C-alpha cells in the first residue's frame, strides 16, 4: 500500500518491496524516467547512525550496467530517501516462488556468469556486497542485475569476499532446486543429483571445502563445471 503519491519532484507509482531498512517505491522523475525511491525506516536509520553513509559512498564509486546508479538524496519532512536507478526485471525470488520458473542448465550458466562478472567488478573496487540473495537479484531474461547495497562494505573491515562467494553458492542452490522433484531427506549434497565437480565447486563456495582464493578461480571453476 502506498501512503503518498508524491515525494519532492517524483511521482510514486507502486511499491516494489521492503525489508528491515524500509520500503522501495517505483517512481518517475520530472522527465518521466523510472527511478527507485528507497525510503528508510526512521528507527533503523537512527540505530544504524554510524553506517548509514556506506551505501551512498559505495554506490557513488561504482559504475557498472548491472548495478543501480546512485542518483540523489531526498530529505523531506515525510521521510528520508535515496534515489536509485531502476533496473528492469523480476527478482529471482519472484521467478522461483511466484512464477515457478524452472531454471535450465543454460539459464543457470547465464545468470551465474553474469553474477560472477558483477562480483569480479565490485571486488576489484574493494566492495563486498554482503547480502547477495534471490531477493536482491533481478533478471529480465537477458541481463542479471544486483541490487541493495545497504549492507555492503569496503574490504579490510568486517567483511571479506568469501561472504559473497557463500551467498552466490546459496543462490545457485535455489536455482538448482527449481527443478528438484525428489523427496526431502537431507542436505543439498545428499538430495541433488550433481556431478562430482559441481558438488565440490558448491562445497567450496559454501565453506564445506577449501575456499576459493579469488573471483577468477571461482569463475574458472564455475565455467568448467556448469558449461557441460
Amino acid at each position, binding site marked *: 500500500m502506498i501512503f503518498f503519491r508524491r515525494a519532492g519532484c517524483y511521482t510514486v507509482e507502486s511499491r516494489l518491496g521492503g*525489508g*528491515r531498512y524500509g520500503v522501495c517505491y517505483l517512481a518517475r522523475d520530472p522527465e518521466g524516467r523510472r527511478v527507485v525511491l528507497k525510503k528508510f*525506516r*526512521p*528507527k533503523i*536509520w*537512527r*540505530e*544504524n*547512525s*554510524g*553506517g*548509514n*553513509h*556506506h551505501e*551512498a*559512498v559505495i554506490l*557513488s*564509486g561504482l559504475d557498472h550496467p548491472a548495478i543501480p546508479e*546512485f542518483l*540523489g*538524496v*531526498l*530529505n523531506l519532512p*515525510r*521521510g*528520508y530517501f535515496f534515489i536509485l536507478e531502476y533496473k528492469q526485471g523480476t527478482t529471482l*525470488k519472484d521467478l*522461483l*516462488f*511466484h512464477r515457478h520458473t524452472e531454471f535450465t542448465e543454460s539459464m543457470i550458466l547465464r545468470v551465474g556468469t553474469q553474477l560472477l562478472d558483477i562480483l569480479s567488478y565490485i571486488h576489484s*573496487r*574493494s*566492495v563486498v556486497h554482503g*547480502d547477495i*540473495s*534471490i*531477493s536482491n537479484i533481478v533478471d529480465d531474461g537477458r541481463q542479471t542485475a544486483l541490487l541493495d547495497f545497504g*549492507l555492503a562494505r569496503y574490504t*579490510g573491515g*568486517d*567483511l571479506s569476499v568469501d*561472504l559473497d562467494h*557463500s*551467498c552466490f*553458492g*546459496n543462490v545457485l*542452490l*535455489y536455482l538448482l*532446486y527449481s527443478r*528438484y522433484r525428489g523427496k*526431502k*531427506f*537431507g*542436505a*543439498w549434497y*545428499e*538430495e541433488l543429483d550433481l556431478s562430482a565437480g559441481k558438488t565440490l565447486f558448491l562445497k567450496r563456495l559454501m*565453506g*564445506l571445502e577449501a575456499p576459493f582464493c579469488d573471483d577468477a578461480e571461482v569463475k574458472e571453476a564455475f565455467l568448467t563445471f556448469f558449461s557441460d
Partner: protein
Amino acid sequence: MFNFFSDSSRKRRYPNPNRGSSHYQKGGFFGMGSSFSRSGSSSPRRQYGYQPYPRQGQHYGMPQQNQGYAASQSGSCICPNCGASVPAGSKFCLSCGAKMASAAFCPNCGKPVPQGAKFCPECGSPTGR
C-alpha cells in the same frame, strides 16, 4: 555506538551450508532466512511525529547529533550548499541532496579518497590529481 556487525550477526550472514529442499523450495517468509525475519515493529505512526532526519543547516555527520556517519578514515568534506559534513566519496550531500563535485575514488583500489589527496590513503596509489 551500535555495532551493526557484531560477531554473531557476521556469522548469521553466512548461509547454512547443510540445508536441503526443505529450505530451498520454501519461498515464504520463513523460507528465505533473510533479513526480513529480523524486522521488528517500527510503530511508524509514533515516529512520524518528529523529524528524525538531518535537515538543512544541521551537520549530518556530526557524531554528537547521533544522526550522521561516524568520522571515517577517509575523511569528509563540507557541502557548499548547506554546510553539512559529507562523507568522502558520496556524490551527493546526505543532508540536502546537493551534488558534490569533489567526490573521488582511487583508480587502483576503488576506495574513496579525501578531497585534494594526491595519493590513496588505503593503497598509496596516485589519485591523478
